[in-house]
């Protein structure tokens, strides 16, 4: 392309955008590299390539510091919550997106409100409620809270998908005498499957990194999910000055998210921007 002065601002912004991307990549690279160093090597120089790739940090963090256990806890809680919220939210989204009924306005409105409610505004009563029912310090209780707090956003995402599905097939099914329930299960759900999967991925990744709910509702170490587990490592590892271990812990927490996200990034972003893009 020919250089022209009026395009100068764009070149400058491009340059900064390039730096930003470079910075982001470098940082994750540096993090991973450093996680293979001993703490003494970290003090000696942060740029140096590790003398030898030590996996001691990883072994120590996974076994002595129970990181494997935390990952398993997260997997159980997050998978359960994702399945539960999809089961509850899919029919609601279908009804709100495709049908009309008395009271639709208030129902939609309450879900929109739910998108903006900060957890901090409700976690005190929730804590008291769950504690009375014996569901604090319980993975089941945490899964349920994960599911219900993801409900408004999941409904919002799925409404967008249902709206893009034409009603013609469903009309045909009605003429053939299918009940509403049959046409939902046999026609709408299969048609909306890409959308349901996108929403599920989104919810999974968002819950995998969740921190506040687990911090409030889980104190017993053996059932902590991964973010909370890493948090409890901080005090122990910095006390002993085990920076290498902490680097490895951070990598272990990030890695599943990054791997999962990079495989499914397109779907992930499609999920986020449904309702904005070209229709």
């Amino acid at each position, binding site marked *: 392309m020919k250089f022209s002065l009026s395009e100068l601002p764009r070149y400058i912004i491009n340059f900064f955008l390039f730096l930003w991307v470079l910075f982001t990549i470098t940082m994750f690279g540096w993090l991973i590299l450093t996680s293979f160093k001993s703490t003494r090597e970290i003090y000696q120089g942060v740029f140096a390539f590790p003398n030898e790739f030590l996996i001691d940090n990883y072994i120590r963090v996974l076994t002595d510091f129970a990181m494997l256990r935390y990952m398993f806890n997260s997997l159980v809680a997050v998978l359960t919550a994702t399945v539960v919220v999809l089961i509850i939210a899919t029919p609601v989204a279908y009804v709100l997106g495709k049908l009309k009924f008395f009271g639709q306005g208030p129902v939609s409105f309450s879900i929109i409100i739910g998108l903006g409610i900060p957890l901090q*505004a409700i976690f005190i009563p929730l804590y008291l409620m769950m504690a009375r029912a014996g569901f604090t310090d319980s993975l089941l209780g945490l899964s349920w809270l994960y599911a219900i707090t993801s409900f408004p956003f999941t409904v919002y995402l799925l409404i967008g998908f249902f709206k893009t599905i034409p009603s013609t097939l469903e009309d045909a099914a009605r003429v053939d005498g299918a009940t509403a329930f049959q046409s939902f299960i046999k026609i709408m759900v299969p048609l909306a499957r890409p959308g349901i999967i996108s929403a599920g991925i989104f919810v999974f990744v968002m819950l995998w990194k969740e921190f506040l709910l687990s911090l409030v509702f889980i104190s017993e170490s053996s059932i902590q999910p991964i973010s909370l587990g890493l948090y409890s490592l901080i005090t122990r590892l910095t006390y002993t000055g085990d920076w290498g271990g902490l680097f490895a812990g951070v990598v272990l927490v990030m890695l599943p998210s990054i791997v999962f996200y990079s495989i499914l990034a397109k779907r992930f972003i499609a999920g986020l921007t449904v309702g904005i893009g070209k229709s």
Partner: protein
Amino acid sequence: MQQNGEIYKSRYRNFILISIIPAMILYIIFMIYPIAETLYYSLFHWAGFSPDMDYVGVSNYLELTGDSLFITTVITSLKYVFLGGFIILGITMLFTYAINNFKSERLKSAVQMILFVPNTISPVALALLWGFILNTRWGLLNTTLSTIGLETLTRGWMGDDYIFAAALSLLVWIHVGFFIVIFVAATDRIPNSLYESAELDGASSLDKFTKITFPLVKDIIEVCMVLWTIFSFKIFGYIHVFGAGTAASQAHVGIRNISVQLYLTAFGRRTAINRVGYASAMAIVLLILLAILVYAIKKIMAVEPVEY
């Protein structure tokens, strides 16, 4: 479809009732009703789980107005909203302008995907990573500065003077990636024909951005302002963990927002809840501030949804 016919009604009525009612009851019990409960608790002196629940009217709120630590956290929260919002949305718009001019679709989506990555990662891990970068002794920033001969610029980034900027920079880095995805999707829906005719008139890429793109995504800018306001009030993990590994066991006062202060008041000590009433009052203040700001944004922006 004849949506108001008798057949339609009888066909769907049961299905609608079964799918909506149980879900909404659970949703109301666990997410809507607790707001009312929080409001109710805020009128009491109460330690939680104890029968001693003294009705004190608005005295918790009056105490908040004289609690200088709380006032500081309110101001800090507002700094995150306004300063953070200005920086984040500003950078996002500049980057969107650059990304829109990429010729290659693959490059376009690759850049977005890389910038979005921090949004998928645990706040605890990101706060620690930022602490590693800014570590005074062996952090990436200070070592880079000394290596390239700018030793005079090295600082104790996690100290009182810089801690707010340090925390804010983390939030900017994370959220620019989020809003770019929204902005690029919004600008993608603008028909190409508009740009083509502007090109014929000899418009530069900057003209096209300011005269076509910007006015047509005003509704999305409003959405993003509202989203950022909500996000920044909710932000907890990044701030709560940031610095925890280097200095104090609790978040530094200079970066604490209402949400962290509220957590520390209600659950801070690992024993039972201490000051349920007082913490509930903080939660109500948080909600009211949030509602006022969102309302103000809607009023000030007052944009009609864009039609194509």
